[in-house]
């Protein structure tokens, strides 16, 4: 929709290769999106609550980041009322049902397994962005809480 502010996406990913794949996938969608990458759950939380500016429309969160990992960050985000409008999509290497269940119960909006096969991985990420940024209506971004 013309005139809309450029969508803001935060990518939480410690692997440079996976981050690169995500960026390539986003480029392939040709969407006018500003993606900001952080490499840990802790950094993501700091970004969300540190302002200034608006909250992202979408967070793509890798589960196994160092330090405060994706699980902790997910829990923290969902615990904070002010952040409840932000969509959080989890990507993970693990297909363990325990991890899947945990993330949905903690409030994740979707859970994607990252394939080892590069082409499949790229396709999966492209589909993810296509869906969440083109097919789905997301709420209006709110200002970052301080």
């Amino acid at each position, binding site marked *: 929709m013309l005139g809309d502010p450029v969508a803001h996406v935060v990518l939480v990913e410690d*692997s440079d*290769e*996976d981050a*690169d*794949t995500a960026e390539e996938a986003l480029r392939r969608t040709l969407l006018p999106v500003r993606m900001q990458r952080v490499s840990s759950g802790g950094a993501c939380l700091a970004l969300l609550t540190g302002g200034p500016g608006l909250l992202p429309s979408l967070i793509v969160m890798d*589960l*196994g980041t160092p330090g405060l990992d994706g699980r902790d960050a997910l829990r923290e985000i969902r615990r904070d009322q002010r952040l409840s409008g932000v969509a959080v999509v989890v990507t*993970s*290497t*693990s*297909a*363990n049902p325990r991890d899947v269940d945990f993330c949905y119960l903690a409030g994740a909006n979707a859970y994607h397994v*990252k*394939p*080892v*096969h*590069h*082409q499949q*991985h790229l396709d999966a990420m492209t589909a993810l962005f296509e869906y969440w940024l083109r097919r789905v209506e997301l709420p209006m971004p709110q200002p970052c809480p301080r």
Partner: protein
Amino acid sequence: MSHYTAVDGHPGVEGEGAQLPWAGQAYSVKRFGVTITNCESEPVQTPGCIQGHGALLVLNRSDLRVAQASENTDALLGHAAAALLGQPVSLVLGAQDEASLRRLLGREDCERNSRYLCTLAARDSAPALDVSVHMVDGVVVVEFEATGRSQPRPDPASWDPIGRVQHSVARLQKADTLQVLGDIATAEIRSLTGLDRVMVYRFHADGHGEIVAESRRDDLAPWLGLHYPAQDIPESAREIFRQSWIRPLREVGAPLAELVPLAHPDTGRPLTMTHCALRGPSVMHTEYLQNMGVTAGLTMAIRRGDQLWGLITGHHYGGAHDLSFEMRAACELLAVVVSLQHRAAQEREELVYRLQLDGVLQQLVTQAAHEGGLSALLDGPPTLLDAMSAGGTALLHRDSWTRAGAVPPEAELQALGAWLANRPELIDVERPIFVTDALAREYPPAAAWAGCGGGLMAIALSRTLGDMVLWFRPETSQSVRWGGNPDDKPQVLGPHGMRLTPRRSFELFIDSVRGRSLPWKSVEVDAALRFRAILMELVVSRAAQLASLNADLARSNDDLDAFAYVASHDLKEPLRGIHKYAHQMATDAAERNDPDRERLAGLLRLAMRMDSLLDSLLHFSRVGRVALLLEPVDVNEVVAEAIEMVDGRRRDKPAEIVVPVRLPVVQVDRVRLREVFVNLLSNALKYNDRPITQVEVGCSAAGPQGVTFFVRDNGIGIQPRHVDQVFKMFKRLHGRDEFGGGTGAGLTIVRKLVERHGGDVWLESTFGQGSTFFFTIPGLPAAKPDAG
């Protein structure tokens, strides 16, 4: 053997009943002995007669005048008995010795204790006489014997009783077991007295006796080890030996001299002769000895505190045998020393036995601990039977009996075990043990077990499992050699018929010990209790060991979880990076027609293979840990789903999967069972080089192991040497790309899934013709609740 009898040990005539021939008057062996028909009716402590080689006077304590005299005083003392009655004793002793007697009575302790007074010189036809004195029931008893110092001595230098006794005592004190003590005592007493045979006769708890030591003339048959019925030495005779240390019998069957009058003129009581050296032997005892050819005897007591532990018995076979006062004193001293030493020796002997028992039991426990099972207790050597003096032993462990030696048949053991399990003794807090030497009296079925139903000792090792150890001891009548057993020696008839022959005695005894074993020694019971305690400790520590192993296992499961996570994430992430770069390079190389593109393609393939290996490992680790969701499942549906899932793999060539029989409903985890079938079916489809692949799914009828399912193919089969390999993780028998590839985890996962259900998996295969994989699901086919 000695044979004494009496009426319940009480001297006197009161209340003996009108049926006795001497009723209403004092008893005399000489007068009434031949009328005796029953061992227990003879008043042995008041026989009314003395041995005729000596004389006896009964004096009033107050004036030392003669109240009773033996009928033979005329020959020995020079005065007829009737003439002595009422006279002062100085008539016989003379004034000087009467004065000595007064001093002795005033000074020394003569009550029931015979003291040497003096020796009367020989006169006319009478020999010199040793005079000894004691008091009993308020009267003074003076005994005269023509023996010892009054006789000319063979060689004064070699005859030194005190020196001999000192020598004997020194030897006895060195004995450190009962056996050595008995051996020394019998040898010393025989050498001291010159008797032909001297034995130590031990009373067992049930009253029967056993010869435990013997010294004999070389030409005599050994009696060592023979057992004798309790009736051979009745209670009344034993009572004498609790009071008196020694009982000499100079000549068996020699004439007796009766007291005149038989009863004391003032009190009317017969004389208690328990402490008289001259006491006349009972008619029973005389006859018993005569039946064995004994011509003279000497018996001494071995006491332990107030208890009569046994006897030292001497026999002579060549006529009369003189035992002087001195000699008797020496023997009495030896009997006392043996009694004192005997306690220490027995304690030492029990200590040795105890150490021996503990040693073997300890070894058994070590064995059991090492081999990790109670069955080691009977595998030996050593075994439970070595530890305890028993005829047989049985171990109940995990509901099965292991037996050694003479024990009842298994069915009987089963019943006995069930009976014992309810006995309160086995769970006693202080002494949890069941001990009996007459099992049949408490457990009547034992009466039928020939040879092993006598005694039983039982300990329980675990209440919940019912494990127990039993020791059986055979009936005494079958386990020992009986003196007097009619099978052992010819029957001898006494002058009064059968009443006192060994056979009669033996038969009486057998009746009394039928169904009884030798009693269990306290040292044995204690050892069994200690054994139990150690074994229980072992069982408990094993439980603790298991608990710690379980904890370790839980820890390693957690480790496996952590590892699975590492495999799923930390290994895959770099692998994805490798694949990405290889993919990009391969794309570039393809554009440039770079010769490296082949190798990059290989790199990509390897990365994907590693990815699937990681997936398998991850899946396998989950299979073992995820809880099963058990429910009644229709296996027909599960197989249909599995066929559908593998259907995509049948694209290469035609294949038919048939299920000719109707499969049952079983209690399983539906998803896991489907995975089992998927794995087996995909293997069956994969490893096949026939033009048409044929697979059959079926099951056998339910048996005790549950239901057995199978998946049969007409594939390539497995060589016998590889059969054990196929269930191993990542074990592949074929090249990676042959038969469609695979990680080699499928059958490992199948086995894991089946084992999780409590079943078993195996295979039969003919190389080149096909394989059949079987697996069982335990339990009976389940009814499906909503079937219909």
